Structure formats: C-alpha cells, structure tokens
C-alpha cells in the first residue's frame, strides 16, 4: 500500500511539474469543419441585403454593429454611419476579441465589395464565432441601391415601387437624395431572413 503510493507519487508529481512548467495551450481550434463551412457558404446564410441593413440603421437597432474591415485610411475617408473599423489584418487581434466573439450584437462586416468582408467572416466563422454576417455587395452595392436607387420602370410590379420608396426614404434618412414618395405610405423593408444555426452544445457530465 505504502510502496504503491510512492510509485504513484513518482509518476504524478513529475507530470504535475511538467504541466506547471509548460504554458497552457490556448490555440483556438477550428470549431467548424470545412464541410460545415462549405454548407453555410452554399446557403449564403451570412449575407444581409443592403435594404435589411438600412432598415436596422434607420430604426437604430441596438443589436446592430457594423464593422468596416477596410484599412484605417479608407475608413476615415468614408464609412457607414455607426460603423467601427477593424481592418481585416487585425481581426484576430486579442483586443478585438470581445467585440467579435459574443452573442449579443449582430456584427455585420462590410468592405468595398464583398470579398474582404467575406474573408473576415470565413476566418471567424471557422473559429465558431456566432452572430457574424456580411453586407451583401459591400459599400458599392450599398451606394447603388440605397444612396442612389434607380427608379423602377412604370410597368414594374407594386413591390418594386415599395422597395424604391423605402430606398429613397433610407437614402434621405442616411444623408443623401430627397424624399419623394410614389405612393401614400412608406412600407418597411422585408424582414431579414436569418437562418438559425444550431448552437454547439457543450459536452454534459455529472456524478
């Protein structure tokens, strides 16, 4: 019994010294497999249309957090109202982790097009971050659709006009163009369809 304990101590105490001496492994492992990520890309669940984002900006949706992933210079020249700047090269910096890895706000990335924003989304999504999205088409498409909406042809269906009205309204609310309504009321944009992803469960245990 005694010798057993000495043997146990000889095995466990050195192991304990080793584990105390080495730094803890803090490497983030990819939480999504390549296949799961591909599925999400195929579904395009990460995209938010400019209309949906504009509506949230106008409504001052407190859960919205626009994140500009372009460089600091580009951000300072022009950025969407309320957006914060996290350049793509800095998205893994520990300083930004509390902004990006959380489950309260909806982080929507944007860049000039969709490419950089999508790259940011892909990297962070693989780390298992929730509530991260991409502004579809980026600032270019935003400018085209929201800031300078194109008047639909007179033969277009009603909802085209509704969309146009909303965009005109949004554009004027966000600083640009003048408000002229083509119909009586300004309809709200369609609610964004957000596909719920099943949350990863932790392994449960107990005595």
């Amino acid at each position, binding site marked *: 019994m005694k010798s057993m304990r000495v043997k146990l101590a000889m095995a466990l105490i050195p192991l*304990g010294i080793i584990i105390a001496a080495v730094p803890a492994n803090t490497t983030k492992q990819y939480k999504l497999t390549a296949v799961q990520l591909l599925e999400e890309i195929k579904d395009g669940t990460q995209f938010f249309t400019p209309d949906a984002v504009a509506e949230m900006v106008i409504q001052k949706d407190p859960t919205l957090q626009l994140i500009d992933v372009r460089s600091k210079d580009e951000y300072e020249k022009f950025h969407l109202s309320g957006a914060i700047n996290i350049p793509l090269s800095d998205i893994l910096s520990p300083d930004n982790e509390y902004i990006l890895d959380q489950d309260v706000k909806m982080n929507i990335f944007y860049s000039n097009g969709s490419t950089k924003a999508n790259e940011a989304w892909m990297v962070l999504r693989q780390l298992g971050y929730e509530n991260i999205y991409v502004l579809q088409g980026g600032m270019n498409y935003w400018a085209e659709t929201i800031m300078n909406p194109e008047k639909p042809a007179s033969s277009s269906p009603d909802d085209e006009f509704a969309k146009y009205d909303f965009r005109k309204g949004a554009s004027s609310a966000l600083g640009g163009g003048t408000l002229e309504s083509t119909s009586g009321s300004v309809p709200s944009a369609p609610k964004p369809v957000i596909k719920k992803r099943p949350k990863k469960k932790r392994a449960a245990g107990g*005595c």
Partner: protein
Amino acid sequence: MGPLVVYDIISANTNLLLAFIVGIGFGFVLESSGFSSSRTLAGMFYGYDTTVLKVFFTAAIVAMLGLLFFSLFGWIDLNLIYINPTFLWSAIVGGAIMGIGFILGGFCPGTAVCAFSIGKLDALMFIGGLIVGILIFTEGFPLWKGLFYAENMGTPTMDKFFGIPQGLFALLMILVAFGMFYVGDWAEKKFPRDEY
C-alpha cells in the same frame, strides 16, 4: 479533436455506449475499493477509514493531469468541457443535506446503487429514501425555487479565482492530494475501530 461528441466525431448514441462502458469500469472500481460498504463510507466522517478520500483524490488528480496533457497536445478543447455552474446557496444547502444523508445512510447515490448490485438490503433502503427525496424536491420545487437559483456564479474555476496558471494549480493540487493521504493515514491511526 475532442470532446468527441461536440465535434460530431461520434454520435450522441455512441457517446452513451462509451459512457455505459466507462460506467461499468467506474462501478467495478467503486466496488473493489470497498465503496459498497456503508461503514467504509461513514468512516470518512469519523476518521477511522479514509478510503473515500484516497480513491477520489487519486481519481481527481489523474483525471486532471490527463485533461491538461490532452489539452497540451491539442487533443481536447478545454473550453468545451462542461463545467457544472455554481449556484452558491444550492451548493451549500444541498451539500449539507447530502453530507447528513451520507453519514446517516452510509452511501452516496452512486455507491448505493453499487452496493445494491451486490445485494445489500441497507442500500435498497437508501435508494428508497433517495427516491422519496427526489419526489419531495420535485413536487415542492416552487417552495425552494428561489433558493435553488440564488447566487448564480457561472462557472468559476479555482485557478481563475486565485489568478494562477492552470498547470501551477494542478501541481499544487497534486501536492495537496499526497499531503491529504498522509493526513488520512494519521486519522486512521488516531481514530481506530477494531471491527467495522
């Protein structure tokens, strides 16, 4: 790579199957360590038999080292390990009730089933009491709901609480465990019982 079930490497059903096999091993070790004897278990309180302390402390430090090394090798992500959340008052009151039951009955829930499986009738009585306790708790839940959910501390761990690295805490824990083994030996000599 791990936890296997979280990463969908194995299905929930396979996980249950593994739990079943591990559980048989657990029961076997419990029984062969003498945990099916209520006297061994109650001895922990009176000091004449500290098997419980030795077995569980050994299990804890071995499992702890295993997890830390697995994490070091990148085999398991410790952030995904389930940690039972701490509800402070539940833990205190529940711990007191469990402790009293432990001394009175001579079993904890797991060892009661272990002892019953080798045919001990006192264990059967204990399991009966356990079921009555479960009934009282669930039926009367509205009465103690406030206490039950009070003071939710999340999942604090000792190393974070003391602000020391995980590995260092592990080493201290191992040293404490071996120290406790000698305290156990001392207690067994100090409060001996001839026959139990």
